């Protein structure tokens, strides 16, 4: 029995109480994931390859966007982005101009993100549709979760002589006109260097992840019609003569929570 003036911590269904270690005087805890309530916790990934050059990127940014993630308008729900993992592999031809050039890769927050936008390629070959990684059937980290609502796309692959599918966020297209706004500075940024005519170069790799908030750290909180893009931020690989290619893979772990029921006022509200 506990001494007078002390308390023991009991559980809900389980009486417990929690243990305190004899020597370290530390109380035993187990850390559980965020309570997603009636929504869920999700993961989605994909990859694409671009060969021989990139066409001009549409507004609101002139930098090629490699992935686009949007929290849609879903009343009372938000997205918590926990992890963004990307791998970029660059092959440059021996005759390329990218030797010792730095290629920054940035994660940019986007506000006023009303819808995803698919741009037709700027050359004569028609573009293929982007790959829709979410919402799709699945992506749940437990089958009985509600299906995800987040809007996550990446470009499709484009071989030599074919055009890329370019993606870009847009604001409301009718009635109220709103310009999507990218953050002035990146949430996170990495950089790799190009080398001509040698083996593949990793511009970005999985460890550490591009964005990774651990236990106790604030995730990237996306309210309705906000999101993020992964883009080159500055110099973009410019494939010169010869065969050059860029391979990108990306996956994202996120949670969808309902406001008011499972969030704390002032924290995730």
């Amino acid at each position, binding site marked *: 029995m*506990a*001494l007078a*003036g*002390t*308390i*023991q*911590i009991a559980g809900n269904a389980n009486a417990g*109480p*929690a*243990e*305190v*270690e004899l020597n*370290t*005087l*530390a*109380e*035993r*805890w*187990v*850390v*559980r*994931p*965020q309570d*997603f309530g009636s929504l869920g*916790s999700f*993961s*989605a*990934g*994909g*990859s694409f*390859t671009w060969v021989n050059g990139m066409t001009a990127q549409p507004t609101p940014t002139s930098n090629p966007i490699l992935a686009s993630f949007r929290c849609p308008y879903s009343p009372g729900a938000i997205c918590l982005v*926990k992890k963004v*993992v990307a*791998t970029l592999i660059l*092959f440059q031809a021996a005759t390329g101009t990218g030797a010792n050039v730095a290629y920054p890769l940035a994660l940019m927050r986007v506000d006023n993100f009303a819808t995803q936008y698919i741009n037709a390629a700027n050359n004569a070959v028609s573009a293929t549709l982007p790959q829709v990684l*979410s919402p*799709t*059937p*699945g*992506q*749940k*980290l*437990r*089958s009985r979760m509600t299906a995800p609502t987040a809007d996550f796309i990446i470009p499709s692959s484009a071989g030599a002589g074919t055009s890329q599918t370019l993606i870009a966020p847009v604001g409301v297209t009718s009635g109220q006109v709103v310009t999507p706004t990218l953050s002035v500075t990146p949430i996170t940024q990495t950089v790799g260097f190009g080398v001509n005519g040698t*083996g*593949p170069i*990793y511009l970005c*790799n*999985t*460890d550490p992840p591009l964005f990774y908030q*651990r*236990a*106790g750290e604030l995730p990237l909180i996306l309210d309705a019609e906000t999101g993020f893009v992964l883009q080159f931020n500055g110099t973009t690989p410019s494939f010169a003569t010869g065969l050059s*290619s860029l*391979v*990108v*893979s*990306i*996956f994202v*772990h996120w949670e969808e929570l309902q406001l008011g029921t499972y969030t704390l006022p002032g924290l995730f509200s």
Partner: protein
Amino acid sequence: MAVQVVGNVNNSTAVEVELNTKAMRAVIRPDDYGSLGIYSIGATSGTIAAGLAAGSAIFSFRFPTGGTATLVNVKRVLMSAIGGATAFAAGTGKFELFAARSFSGSDTGQTDITPAAASATSKLRTSMATTSMVGTGDIRISSTNAVTAGTRSLDAQPLASLACVCSATTSVNMLGGAMVPLFDQRVGEFPLVCATNEGFVIQATVTATGTWVFSVSCTWEELAAY
């Protein structure tokens, strides 16, 4: 008036609060596996033959019905891959991890690495129960070619995707690191929770001509509830 928090069996031992930071000391314990357990397995393939079809299954994990556990929490899947003695046609490939649902029939062929019955294999503590994967569960890895699909439904998109290098030079690391996390859920993050007849599959797409070898390590919990 303050109270002190004391323990269960150690019911005269009060938890400490740090002098300067005023933080209460805590120790993080794993999920309570009860009478079940927490397991890990690692395996290396054989030399994968050239010309593997795109999107081939190279690793398969199926949690069956009929075992003691109700759920399997997949916490971590790590991979490494390296080109072999015959170089690839230069290019890139990918590895993708798909959730497999309605997994009523195990994949077949290649190398079965499912833990053997009544052995300490894969347990992170010998006193843990034999894994529910024993018997009708199935874990397998490619030896020279693709694993043959059983009865399962893969999600439309993978849970995770990694691009890899297929080099025209032999013996090149395909993933840019010795061991790369393909799925790695840490403290406070949601694992892949598999009910019975669920699991996951790793698929590979590589360029032609090359031979290669890969390894996979997987850690999972078997629980009655989560």
